[in-house]
């Protein structure tokens, strides 16, 4: 999957599943501060990533994600592994 495709799919997930405003979503936006996603929202995000990209994200790797760009990086790495 191309990075741009991951990016657009992730953006849709954040809008549809987590109810985040599309305009707020940028690669450097942090989930916690910029997008107001709390710890429960992060769990929901990970479940959505796993479901929609067919990848498995262990908790220790999930904890490293703080921005939208890092989430894209991780999914890309998983898909290409």
């Amino acid at each position, binding site marked *: 999957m191309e990075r741009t495709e991951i990016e657009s799919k992730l953006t849709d997930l954040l809008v549809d599943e987590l*109810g985040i405003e599309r305009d707020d979503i940028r690669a450097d936006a942090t989930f916690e501060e910029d997008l107001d996603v709390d710890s*429960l929202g992060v769990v929901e995000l990970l*479940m959505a990533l796993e479901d929609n990209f067919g990848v498995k994200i262990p908790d220790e790797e999930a904890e490293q994600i703080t921005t939208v760009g890092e989430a894209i990086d991780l999914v890309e790495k998983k898909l290409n592994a």
Partner: protein
Amino acid sequence: MNDRRVVVTGLGTVNPVAGDVESTWRGLLDGTSGVGPITSIEASDLPSQIAGEITDFDIEAFMPRRQARRMDRYAQLFWVAAREALGDSGIAYEPDDPAAYRAGVVVGSGIGGVTTFEEEVTTLLEVGPHRLSPFGIPKIIANLAGGQISIDFNLYGPNTTAVTACAASANAIGDAAAIIQRGAADVMLAGGADAAITRLAMGGFAQARALSTRNDDPQGASRPFDAGRDGFVMAEGAAALVLEEREHALERGATVYAEVVGYGMSADGYHVTLPRPGGDGAARAMQSALDDAGIAAEQVSYINAHGTSTAANDVTETMAIKTVFGDHAYRVPISSTKSMTGHLLGGAGAVEAVASVLAIRDGIVPPTINLTDPDPECDLDYVPGEARTVDVQYAMSNSFGFGGHNVVLVFSSQ
């Protein structure tokens, strides 16, 4: 007697009759039924296929979707009722407002987030624990309606939940008033909600033989005190009241609807779902509420009955009223607004408290509809069919729940 008196300064409700207080009140006085065929779930294999549904409820008109999806429907309904009640009273706190630490919440709910419970159990069985929602537990638990209100409306005082089935929101109101009386808060939002039109709840209550199966006549199915009654009609919804220490309310120039003067409780100690025959438990709760109010039974000018339309309740409640009121039982107007709203379970007591308070305000009592052929054992004045002008000084509201919980509130005009 305590010198801290408690008054009602705000009302809110969303229920099958209407989505706000004044429309609900007009509907109740007009004898409008909120009951219809079930549309929100698959009901074709359920014994009871009718309910008081809120078909036009749009939570996203009140909050962003991302917030709404973290709340079960019961909590969403309560949130909307609470918003109306707080707005009506003029109570609003900014974060960290010192006064907000003297304001709290008591909510009643019979079952809490049963919709979510069903969804999560389905996920657990069909997919597995790794796909359970992180919001599942907070959506299921019955105290989250109150927790959410404290978060969104900045009410930092006492916050608790009553879970006494169909008496839950009457307990919430009584407990909230007591919290103000003993000085632990000046303002309390009290009420309750349930949203149990789900397959689990509808199927389970039917197995307990509690629900009407008059599926071909939805609006005639809730018929309290009528010989043709065959069970209660499930309904969803919420109501909330702002209770306030009287001096606090007067100082800020709040509109006062009524005073909360009596709160009585008892337990039947008899059976999980059936009332004690003869109504001794209900009678003791009524007497206890009168004693708490310091009034004689003859002073009560309206009773909003529990009046569920079940075979057992309506006879037992009638006997209990006779025990407590003697000859006055035959003179005092009694009505069951459940004939129109259906039975909101944990939301019922609060909706009926709203009706009782408005009966005091307007000097008119709502009717019991569908009472065309009274049960011979139900021989009191249930205000059949038409609302009636009554100068209501003291109104009593009865609420009884599975488990044998009997809760009675008395409101008075100022």
